[in-house]
């Protein structure tokens, strides 16, 4: 498509949230480990949040009030992971000093100016992800900068805050949260909107991530780092995209958001050129169930059987606009459906730009238009199915979104899909509602804390890169891969233990990058592989008890079932000596002698296949191949 990002005036700011690997949570002594296992039987707590009507800031207060009213939130409290602090049944304890030290160390690494006394604030968050209705957060440092080839990116703030509860599912319209994650320390690094392209976004996010990993005190794995991206273009709006967990799609997210804003601006121009005005869009909703009395549409039949109704609303002059694609696979109609879902709780909308469809006939569409007194050639109709209340709320939301289309890009908080597209999440809060957390005393940053923090200051990534190239003679490619790897820090500890001809730095680096990635791409849960396990298999490799292939096999089996004993696994793959391997191959060659002579060209593959069945992981494949070739040569000569 070739967007000129300079031309459209792209400005991107990043907020990187990374979980810290501390022994306890930020404001209580619960561990920072997530609960694993079935959660159906866990203790449940049900709550409602509310906020004074005059305290909602710039968001339409009535709307926010309605949004929160009657929204039940269900919290799960797994034993051993959650105490009365997370349940908001006990005041918070003092700020975790370990987490504070790590945050201070990181701030020093970004040359950020550390505040002299830390004040914890309450930031109002009403989606239920915090039992209190606010997130506790504190600025640790201000300013700082990050070098990038497209231009230096300023750091605005570095905050230490509590992670939110983990949304695990929805139940009858209520959000269900597991409280195990609530209170895990997070560091938040916010950049100024100095980023100018999708590629630069990716580079800056990667570099911040690398620096965080270099402290050695951050968590690894899915969900432990989340990036919020603020994207704006000239004439558009600053849109917040929350919680991008996968770094690799971050450039796509920016690209698609620019695409969406540009499309919405074009859509606005089209709407205005059609001569429609905001007042033409009426919040008049009609029960049109009778149109579908005889319907063949399974969707409609099933719903009517449950006693649901079909409600419709006319979008005057909008014919054809709902099928305009705003992002790959997402149309303007999809944007409207997001609103209907979020505010009214229906499962989606049906609109005339996609009809006939869903088993709805041409005739039904005609009768729909005529019942509504709408013009089939000019107008669009949006329908929702459900009980009356839900339908009205949904259509209300649709109408208010359509009215925004006359202005352009609404200020929204959106959430990223796996493919880099985004969907509507909630209206953007006005200026963050913040007030002091009076339950937690301020913390004076003194020399002792700074001394403690020095342990966690990340090294300069460029110096680390240099060291990999020169001291450890890794290739550029391998060095880059290692720096991207979540296991990077293992390397430095492992090369200290092993530096011999068998377990070379190159081997350790490729094990931590290429081989582990290979296992991951097979779907093996490599997060089960701990430092100690890697150290153990490497020592087996050094002593000659395991082959290099054996190392991979043991890791594969262990990761798939970490309850297995690593000793037993290693024994199972114990390296065979050359005589034994020769015996095995000779036997195969002997017993298949005739066939091999007949199928001369494929002989090698046949013998390799049979041999590896027996020898996989017990000797390196290369050794087997060499022997097979040698023995076959003798046979076929």
């Amino acid at each position: 498509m070739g967007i000129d990002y300079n031309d459209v005036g792209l400005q991107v700011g990043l907020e990187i949230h990374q979980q810290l690997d501390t022994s306890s949570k930020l404001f209580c002594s619960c561990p920072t480990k997530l609960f694993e296992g079935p959660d159906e039987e866990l203790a449940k707590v049900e709550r409602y949040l509310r906020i004074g009507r005059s305290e909602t800031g710039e968001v339409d207060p009535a709307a926010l009030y309605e949004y929160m009213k009657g929204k039940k939130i269900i919290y799960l409290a797994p034993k051993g992971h959650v105490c009365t602090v997370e349940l908001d049944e006990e005041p918070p304890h003092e700020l975790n000093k370990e987490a504070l030290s790590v945050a201070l160390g990181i701030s020093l690494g970004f040359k950020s100016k550390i505040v002299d006394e830390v004040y914890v604030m309450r930031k109002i968050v009403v989606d239920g992800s915090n039992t209190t209705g606010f997130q506790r957060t504190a600025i640790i440092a201000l300013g700082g900068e990050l070098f990038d080839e497209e231009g230096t990116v300023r750091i605005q703030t570095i905050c230490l805050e509590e992670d939110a509860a983990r949304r695990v599912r929805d139940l009858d319209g209520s959000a269900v949260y597991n409280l195990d994650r609530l209170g895990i320390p997070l560091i938040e690094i916010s950049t100024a909107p100095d980023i100018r392209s999708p590629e630069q976004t990716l580079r800056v996010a990667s570099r911040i991530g690398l620096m965080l990993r270099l402290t050695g005190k951050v968590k690894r794995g899915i969900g432990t780092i989340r990036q919020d991206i603020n994207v704006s273009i000239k004439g558009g709006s600053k849109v917040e995209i929350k919680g991008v967990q996968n770094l690799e799609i971050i450039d796509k997210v920016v690209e698609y958001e620019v695409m969406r804003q540009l499309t919405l601006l074009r859509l606005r121009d089209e709407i205005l050129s059609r001569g429609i005005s905001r007042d033409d869009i009426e919040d008049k909703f009609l029960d049109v169930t009778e149109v579908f009395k005889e319907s063949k549409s399974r969707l409609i039949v099933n719903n009517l059987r449950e006693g649901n109704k079909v409600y419709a609303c006319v979008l005057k002059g909008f014919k054809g606009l709902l099928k305009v694609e705003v992002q790959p696979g997402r149309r303007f109609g999809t944007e409207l459906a997001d609103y209907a879902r979020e505010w009214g709780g229906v499962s989606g909308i049906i609109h005339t730009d996609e009809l006939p469809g869903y088993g709805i006939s041409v005739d039904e569409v005609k009768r729909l238009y005529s019942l509504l007194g709408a013009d089939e050639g000019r107008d669009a109709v949006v329908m929702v199915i459900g009980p009356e209340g839900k339908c009205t709320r949904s259509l209300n939301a649709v109408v208010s979104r359509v009215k925004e289309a006359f202005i352009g890009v609404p200020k929204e908080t959106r959430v990223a899909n796996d493919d880099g597209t985004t969907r509507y999440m909630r209206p953007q809060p006005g200026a963050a509602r913040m007030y002091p957390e009076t339950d937690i005393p301020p913390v004076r940053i003194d020399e002792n804390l700074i001394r403690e923090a020095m342990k966690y200051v990340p090294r300069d990534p460029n110096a680390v890169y240099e060291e990999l190239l020169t001291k450890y003679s890794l290739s550029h490619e391998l060095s880059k891969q290692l720096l991207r790897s979540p296991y990077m820090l293992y390397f430095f500890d492992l090369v200290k233990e092993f530096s011999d001809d068998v377990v070379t730095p190159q081997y350790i680096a490729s094990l931590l990058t290429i081989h582990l990635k290979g296992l991951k791409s097979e779907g093996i849960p490599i997060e089960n592989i701990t430092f100690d396990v890697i150290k153990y298999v490497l020592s087996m490799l050094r002593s000659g008890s395991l082959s290099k292939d054996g190392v991979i096999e043991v890791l594969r089996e262990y990761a798939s079932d970490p309850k297995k004993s690593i000793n037993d696994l290693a024994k199972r793959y114990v390296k065979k000596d050359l005589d034994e391997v020769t015996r095995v191959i000779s036997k195969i060659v002997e017993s298949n002698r005739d066939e091999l002579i007949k199928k001369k060209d494929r002989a090698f593959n046949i013998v390799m296949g049979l041999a590896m069945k027996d020898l996989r992981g017990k000797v390196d494949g290369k050794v087997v191949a060499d022997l097979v070739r040698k023995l076959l040569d003798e046979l076929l000569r």
Partner: protein
Amino acid sequence: MKPGDLIRIVKDGHVVEGVLMPLTELSSKNDIVVVKLANGYNVGVSLTNAYVEVVKEGYIEMGVSERRSASTYVTGQTGKLISVVSTGGTIVSKVEYETGAVKPALTADDLIDFVPELKEMGSIEVIDLYRILSENMTPDHWASISRVVGEKIVSGVDGIIVAHGTDTLSYTSSALAFALMNLPQPIVLVGSQRSSDRPSSDSALNLLASIVVALNAPFGEVVAAMHGSVSDNYILVHRGVKVRKMHSSRRDAFQTVNDVPLAKVVFPDKRLVMISTKYLCRNKKENLIIMPNFEKKVAIVKAYPGLSSEIIDFLVDKKFKGIVIEGTGLGHVNDLCIPSIRRAAEEGVVVAMATQTIFGRVNMNVYTTGRRLLMAGVIPAADMLAETTYVKLSWLLANFNDLSDVKKLLTRNLVHEINDAHEEYLYPRWYHGDRL
């Protein structure tokens, strides 16, 4: 430079600009200033080696004038009139986002702002009586709350709510229960364990439930309406003389001890469900008795190993008129104290015995010590909570001149403060290794 000014601090080449905030009680005092940045965060900056300038004086207004009026009123959507007597506590507090100050919100408008549904239930009148933390309540406060509530009943309002801090809420509920008898309607005390400036506050549900009870309950008793569980699913209605704060922070801290709660209000439909069948029905208004006096010279003494008789002697010397001993077990105190207790009784001090086990009943006939204490003149307080015994004794001493009346009435069941039958299920279950 004063709080509310927009200031700029230049230090080590960095610039910090924001609004000067007042220091908190726990801020470093010597060199720190607290600055609110444009993004809403507060940070503490040391002024050592810093250059400071005031950019704009009085950028925001600090410590907004506290309008105080005796009572405020909002018209509701039904013909009912509900009086909320506010005495303080966190159930009615509001935060000012600009300054972070938490101020008591004591107008009807503030209440409606926080709980708009209140309007659907009736007109709300808020009487701004006190703004004190409940640990600072005294028997004098009980007396004037009783008078104000008594006047409201006589003037004929449909519902009466008393908003109160939770720490000593059960003392005040007991006091009202004795000071106002033959009630034509319930009097509902309500508090909150999470202050109302938090989105997760329990105060909205507690308030809504207390109005449901005040308007619709069949009983004429003083009760406390507080969360029944840590979920927002029902509010328990406890008899004021049997309720106790059993936890320092949980929202279901209030529990009925040695009896069952009177009722619950189930949410979200605000349905009143009776739990107890034993209650005092709403009486005729003309039968109302108001005796709002309390004696201040009453003390609670907790028995413990090593308790010295000097403490009892001291109280007698200081002319205390009543002593409640929170005894061990069935109602005991070490032998060495018995002579002092005997002297107290002989000098006209009423000495009552409750138990520090909280659950169960005093029985002083079982062991020698108990029998000797009885002989010394101690009055066993049956299954009354020590706190209730203390309030009851204070009330009796202030309203009855004849000591034999005081002693007789102390053990007589006046408003269900005594429960003669403890069924097995009245004792709570704790975690014993069962699956959670």
